[in-house]
């Protein structure tokens, strides 16, 4: 067995980065589909290196290690430094694994796009950035990856930039993320001024001694603020639904499987700090639970196939937040992984559907696609079952673990557990609703649309992801806590939340979770496996509530009215009122004053010599008198 030294891990980042550079300069020349293959190869190469390097952790012989690439900003303890431990290994494998599949899928999906090569440039750049994020050995480098994935997200959301909605969605995503980053930056400042370094080892080793009082809570909350932005939690989730303007593989890769989970990763990574800040953890958990429920209800009311998935993503991320907030870091990361599988699967399947429908995304216009797209039908079915939390698929294991850990925390966490349980029901409902609306029933396709199964390059990744969605949960079952064991070195010294001890209680909890899923699924099936008129009647039964869900509670409009419009007005007032009139007015006012004085005394310059002479004489006499009165020595 080859042992790969940590020093060689820069290769993991270098492959996709090199791919991005190559495609940036030579992409047009390479053309379609070579550019896509090269990009996929780069991603696969990174996966291969990461897999080899991760072997010691699987065999249980590995130890976390660091490798310094180069100094970046020594004054603030920032360097390019790779940290290799089970947590980053797992994240790397998920990112490169799912990422590679999505690369391959995109070769088919982006077929015929004039900016085919450019798309893969961005995709590769994203992979490199995400790997920078997860491999970082200190908060500064983490922030590099953190922001670069934001950049790639911006570039990819507004990939079809001629559509104004895409351009503005990209900007919105970046700006909203930046608001979260504001908190993150403050967290970095706090960490540096406490520890004098930003490196993980330096911070975590001394966290318990150096942090006291409210300091860890503040740091934790600020880190969480950043995470809330990136992971699209309340109140900063509004960018994610709009991000669906990007090509669907992007939605799958960035806005479901990897980038949005960065927030969860950061909180898990900072476990030693959150350990000291139960309040911050509680806030994270509460935000997660509320977001989960909030987004799930919105997802119910959506008819755009991708928007359902977008809100579903927000909701699932809420689960992860709930988990890490309840100190169930392993459960959170576990759900992160399984979610990456099934949500990528769902998005890619949705992409396949959109592809088949000629770009249409409205589920009202679909229906009966089962026959036309058998592979997509089956694989998406797997994904739906998985996310609904029905055993033995991946979603069940991770979601059940989260819920049971939260329940076991007791106290007010029980309320969060209840929210989680309701959300599980809603999740099953809206996912099955989508599934039924898209694939079952009678076709409601518009004229001229003839759906067909997608090409091989798209269906193969679907199948692989479906297999992972089925089997992925088995790495960490209550019977064999493989993942927890695997991640142990990363959470050394951190008290992890655990499920209840008694087997009976565990089973009851699991039964409740599964029951919620089944009930939700059944309700969706009965409500929607009927003609459209019937389901519309069903929807109108909710009264105003449905309208709110459809409108996502009008949060976008509220933000617009409360923040954007007043913000712009403030800016206008400042620019054209204060700056032009007051500040510049003062400057020009001084100039005007000088001019006015000049105008005032100008008549004295009459041009009449005799008058000047008189003034001269009078002045002279006045001076003389003054001298005489004062008396010159």
């Amino acid at each position, binding site marked *: 067995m080859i042992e790969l030294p940590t020093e060689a891990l820069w290769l993991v980042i270098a492959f996709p980065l090199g791919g991005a550079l190559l495609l940036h300069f030579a992409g047009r020349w390479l053309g379609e589909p070579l550019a896509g293959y090269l990009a996929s190869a780069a991603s696969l190469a990174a996966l291969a290196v990461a897999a080899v390097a991760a072997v010691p952790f699987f065999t249980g012989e590995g130890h976390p290690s660091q490798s310094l690439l180069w100094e970046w*900003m020594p004054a603030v303890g920032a360097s390019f430094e790779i940290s290799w431990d089970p947590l980053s290994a797992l994240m790397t494998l998920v990112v490169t694994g799912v990422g590679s599949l999505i690369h391959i899928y995109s070769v088919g999906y982006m077929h015929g796009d004039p900016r085919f090569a450019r798309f893969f440039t961005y995709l590769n750049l994203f992979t490199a950035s995400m790997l920078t994020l997860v491999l970082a050995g200190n908060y500064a480098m983490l922030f590099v990856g953190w*922001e670069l994935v934001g950049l790639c997200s911006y570039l990819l959301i507004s990939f079809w930039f*001629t559509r104004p909605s*895409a351009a503005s969605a990209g900007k919105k995503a970046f700006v909203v993320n930046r608001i979260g980053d504001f908190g993150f930056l403050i967290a970095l*400042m706090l960490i540096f001024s406490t520890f004098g370094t930003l490196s993980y080892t330096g911070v975590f080793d001394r966290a318990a001694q150096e942090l006291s009082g409210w300091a860890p809570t*503040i740091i934790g909350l600020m880190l969480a603020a950043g995470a809330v932005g990136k992971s699209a939690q309340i109140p900063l989730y509004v960018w994610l639904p709009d991000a669906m303007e990007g090509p669907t593989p992007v939605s799958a890769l960035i806005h479901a499987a990897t980038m949005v989970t960065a927030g969860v990763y950061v909180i898990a990574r900072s476990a030693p700090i959150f350990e000291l800040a139960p309040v911050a953890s509680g806030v994270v958990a509460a935000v997660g639970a509320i977001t989960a429920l909030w987004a799930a209800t919105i997802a119910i009311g959506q008819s755009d196939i991708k928007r359902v998935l977008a809100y579903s993503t927000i909701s699932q991320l809420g689960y992860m937040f709930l988990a890490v907030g309840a100190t169930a870091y392993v459960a959170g990361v576990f759900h992160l992984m399984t979610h990456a599988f099934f949500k990528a699967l769902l998005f890619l399947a949705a992409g396949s559907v959109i592809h088949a429908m000629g770009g249409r995304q409205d589920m009202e216009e679909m229906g009966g696609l089962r026959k036309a797209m058998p592979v997509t039908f089956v694989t998406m079915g797997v994904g739906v079952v998985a996310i609904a939390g029905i055993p033995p698929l991946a979603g069940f294991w991770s979601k059940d673990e989260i819920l049971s850990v939260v329940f076991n925390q007791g106290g007010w966490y029980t309320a969060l557990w209840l929210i989680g349980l309701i959300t599980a029901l809603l999740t099953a409902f809206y996912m099955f609703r989508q599934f039924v609306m898209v694939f079952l029933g009678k076709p409601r396709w518009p004229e001229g649309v003839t759906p067909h199964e997608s090409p091989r390059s798209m269906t193969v990744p679907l199948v692989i992801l479906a297999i992972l969605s089925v089997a992925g949960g088995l790495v960490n079952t209550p019977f064999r806590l493989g993942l927890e064991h695997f991640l142990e070195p990363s959470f050394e010294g951190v008290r992890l939340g655990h499920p209840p001890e008694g087997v009976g209680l565990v089973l009851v909890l699991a039964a409740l979770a599964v029951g919620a899923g089944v009930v939700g699924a059944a309700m969706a099936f009965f409500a929607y496996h009927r003609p459209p008129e019937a389901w519309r009647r069903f929807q109108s039964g909710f009264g105003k509530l449905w309208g709110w869900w459809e409108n996502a509670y009008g949060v976008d409009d509220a933000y617009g009215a409360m923040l954007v419009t007043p913000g*712009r007005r403030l800016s206008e007032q*400042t620019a054209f009122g204060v700056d032009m009139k007051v500040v510049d007015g003062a400057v020009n006012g001084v100039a005007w004053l000088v001019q006015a004085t000049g105008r005032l005394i100008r008549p004295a310059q009459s041009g009449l010599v005799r008058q000047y002479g008189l003034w001269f004489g009078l002045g002279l006499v006045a001076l003389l008198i003054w001298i005489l009165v004062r008396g010159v020595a």
Partner: protein
Amino acid sequence: MLTLLVLTPLLGAVVISLVPARRRELQLPLGIALSAAPLGVAGAVFVSFEKGEGSFQMVEKMVWWEPWGISWHLGVDGISLGLVALTTLLFPLSLAASDAITHRRKAFVMAMLVLETGLIGTFLALDLVLFFVFFEVILVPMYLIIGIWGGERRVYAAVKFFIYTAVGSALLLAAIIALAVMHASQSVEGALSFDYLALLDLEISSTAQMWLFGAFALAFAIKVPLFPFHTWLPDAHVEAPTAGSVLLAGVLLKLGTYGLLRFNLTLFPEATVSLVPVLAVLAVVGIIYGAVVAIVQPDLKKLVAYSSVSHLGFVVLGIFALTSAGLQGAVIQNVNHGLTTGALFLLVGMLYDRRHTKKIADFGGLASRVPMMAGFFLFMAFASIGLPGLNGFVGEFLVLVGSFPSLPAYAVVAAFGVVLAAIYMLWAYQRVFTGPLTGMANRKLVDLSPKETAILSPLAALVLLLGLYPGILLDRTAPSVEAILDRIEQTTDYQVPSPGRLEDVFASGSGDGEG
């Protein structure tokens, strides 16, 4: 070597003056070639600069006017090194981007070369009179560049620029003379001296320090420009030709921050320490205010100009953070801002040359017509926003993290400027480059020529290099910065904060419990 560096551009101006006026085709290429010469010299200076040394290097001193203690005294340290390199780099590039100047081209090239001498001289001068002379020399060519080759309201802008800065200079001169007189009253021989190194040993009373600090700071604050002395800047930028804007933002503004760093901190340490809150407030207000005002600017150049106000606020905040990281951040942010904003002005200029408008509303969806230009613009916009991996981040991050221990509340507010930067830059990009292509004129745009690409590429490369490996500059800056801090610690009871419990940070810092 430094004398050579200062005088090469001036020599170039003389050479250009000898070119017959009708050989127009020679003037610009020759100017570019001549301004490349100081770049070479600056490169040599950069290479031979000793890394670990915090004091002045390659010092040259010749007596100029003995009775008044004025000397031709030049030297370079980690603070001026980057700025000198930046200056020499931006001149050939901006001259190369001046094809659009057809009227009195010879005079233009000469003005540019004289300007270069002035700028390099200001950064290298170690004698206050010499410094002042160079500081003022700059005004004349810049006034001409704006006033002759500028836009419609060029005369207004040029006069405003000139008078505003001259007002500041007047006080500066008075303060410089006061220092020399103090030297005479304190030294044994009673001799006047304008030598920076000699003046460092002065013992100045607290009150006198306050006044002198104020005079110096006002002159430099106008140059920076620090809120609320900034209104000459948008006017000057909007009217100036491309090269003028590039140099104005790229180098001229740095004279202010350089002056604060070089003179205010070292000559008046006591006043510095007690006036930190004032300048930090102005800096932070400038950061937020500049950004807020930039958001709604209808003119692309004005937008970039206000973004400069915001970015230079970071520099000033870093300076008055009085920590190693803050000062290093200020120094490198100086250079960074020169690169990115210089490049942005070049791009706006290239756009203006094609469309003869700078109004954002006149553009739309350009990216599909001019992808290269859009790419460069976005790249520079992100550098300016402070995307990690690009240079802008390094400066901002150092400043923010460096100022937090001493000025926590200010640092937190300043950090919000980072959010605003994303808003104004990306919104501007969105309106200019994305969306459907609008208007007939925009449809006929041509993308960057190879020459234009060649002008922008070195800047882009440096943006990336400094973003990923700022050590190339920071290694040389750090010792000089430490020297300044040591001096402040020795002459006052100020202590550079060291990492510690947050309670201590908030208790010691002037922050008022921002949480």
